[in-house]
């Protein structure tokens, strides 16, 4: 009716929406959010688009093709071997690291003298770059002059020396050994923190009830470690799917395709063979596999009602 009334009301509405606090908040968040949107979300979608396009060779091409790359994937022997290797990796590496980490944590929980020194030493491999670990263990595993074989010979166990990661049948296993070596210290840290967070009163109650040390661990402590075990499990599985650096350096995927896992296959397809659409399809599959694990984990840890703010 009245123009002045309408404009005043409009101004008030704008003032309510664009408050000083809102502007400040936006300024705080704009750069990181833009980064996240572009480098993560847009890139992921872009990647999926590429996998559906006809891009072959060096010049990008975005004509929509079809789901052919995905069909190719699941009939391709290399891809399937790669996928299988990834699964084997998970099956050996994850329980291995968890067990080793738990074992070390229990050892260190025994009121050890110089506990911090041991902690430092066990955690040390985790701080190394995979590039470094790759080279260190190439030297360890070297068949002719490497550390392990020469060591075994010198103590008379020469018959145990073998081809390690050059052995087509066991290469993956030996790769897992390296990864367990690298990750045990980190798992140990998580478990030790978990063990130490169990109230002293539980341990004392168990003692009063007559439980031996072993029983206390088995029946009282370990069952209460569900949360750290779950966290560790998620971290390890996600890593196992992403592990590129180490295998690239240690074996390059070989011998043959014995240690090739999805990230390596993707890299080779895209950067060596220039099969962009195919490579991006592999990457998409990898992404989905990881999301299957990560989304439920994130939701249970950070999402849900308990974190609602008003």
């Amino acid at each position, binding site marked *: 009716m009245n123009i002045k009334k309408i404009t005043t009301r409009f101004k008030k509405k704008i003032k309510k929406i664009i408050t000083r*606090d809102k502007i400040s*908040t936006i300024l*705080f*968040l704009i750069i*990181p959010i833009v*980064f*996240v949107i*572009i*480098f*993560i979300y847009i*890139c992921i979608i*872009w*990647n999926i688009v*590429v996998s559906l396009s006809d891009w072959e060779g060096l010049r*990008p091409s975005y004509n929509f093709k079809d789901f052919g790359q995905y069909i190719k994937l699941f009939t391709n022997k290399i891809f399937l071997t790669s996928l299988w290797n990834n699964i084997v990796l998970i099956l050996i590496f994850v329980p291995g690291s968890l067990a080793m980490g738990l074992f*070390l944590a229990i*050892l*260190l929980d025994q009121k050890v003298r110089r506990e911090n020194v*041991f902690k430092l*030493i066990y*955690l*040390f491999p985790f*701080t*190394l*770059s995979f*590039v*470094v670990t790759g*080279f*260190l*263990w190439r*030297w360890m595993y070297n068949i002719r*002059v490497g550390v392990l074989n*020469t*060591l075994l010979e010198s103590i008379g166990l020469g018959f145990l020396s073998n081809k390690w990661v050059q052995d087509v049948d066991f290469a993956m296993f030996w790769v897992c050994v390296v990864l367990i*070596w690298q990750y045990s210290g*980190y798992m140990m*840290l*998580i478990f030790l*923190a978990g063990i130490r967070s169990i109230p002293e009163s539980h341990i004392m109650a168990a003692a009063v009830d007559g439980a031996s040390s072993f029983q206390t661990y088995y029946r009282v402590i370990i069952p209460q470690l569900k949360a750290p075990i779950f*966290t560790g499990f998620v971290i390890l599985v*996600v*890593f196992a799917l*992403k592990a*590129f*650096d180490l295998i690239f*350096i240690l074996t390059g995927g070989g011998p043959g395709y014995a240690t090739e896992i999805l*990230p390596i296959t993707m890299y080779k397809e*895209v*950067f060596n063979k220039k099969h962009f659409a195919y490579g991006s399809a*592999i*990457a998409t599959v990898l*992404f989905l596999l*990881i999301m299957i694990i990560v989304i439920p984990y*994130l939701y249970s*840890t*950070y*999402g849900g009602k308990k*974190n609602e*703010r*008003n």
Partner: protein
Amino acid sequence: MKEIKIGSKKMRLPHPTRVLLYFLLIFFAFLALLPLWSAVMTALKTQEALIYSNPIQPPIKPSLDAFGTAFNKLRIPILNSLTFTIPATILSCVLGSMTGYALTKVKFRGANTIFLLVIVGIFIPYQAVLIPLVQIIIELGIYGEISALILTHTAYGVPICTLLFKSFYDSIHDSLINAAKIDGAGIWRTYIHVILPLSVTPFVVAAVFQFTQIWNDLLFGLVLSGAGSNQPASVALLNLQGGFVTAWNVQMAGTLWYTIPSLVVYLVLGKYLVKGFMAGAIKG
């Protein structure tokens, strides 16, 4: 503990399980350090010494030749690595702090959702964004430049830094923020006068963590630095050996050079790194 008599002295024998315990602990410590030990021993040997000794024996005549050769080849790449690692570390920490604060202490609807969407970035496999990333870098005209790595590492460092800062800021009582509001401070001034001064620890934790992660990266370096002279140390290490026969002493020396900065950081600021790992962090 059992007591026995040896001569006129009473001695306390440790319980057998304690002996086993320490034996195991030392054994595993040995396993943890063996590769490093061997690398150091190997790097200190000359080519001939390599042939005549076994990899864990110390050299009879230690030589720094291998270190010298390796350093010459790695000098520039290490400098390159430092040139992008330090700025990217600082930038991702600052951004992480600001994001963590805005999503934790400024209560607005959807803050938690945005937080979750950011956190997802910690877990994504970089393969899933690699091709588009390269395209972006090419479009921006910085392919092969150090700035490409600074940009990339900063962007992908935001999620984990946000997580690190958020968990720290969660422990600051809301009443402190409310007091600042009552005292007249808006969002910016609360951040500068109240939050930042209290953020020293998380900054160190995030910086140490990010430095280690970025320094140790291989994938982005491989893909974005091209063949030129801007290669990071990790990539250069790969290409250290040109010929057919691997000079293991040089290779090990190069590996050690590469690892020294992160080793120093670990020894000096290790406990902060541990805190970083504990905040649900992942490597790689």
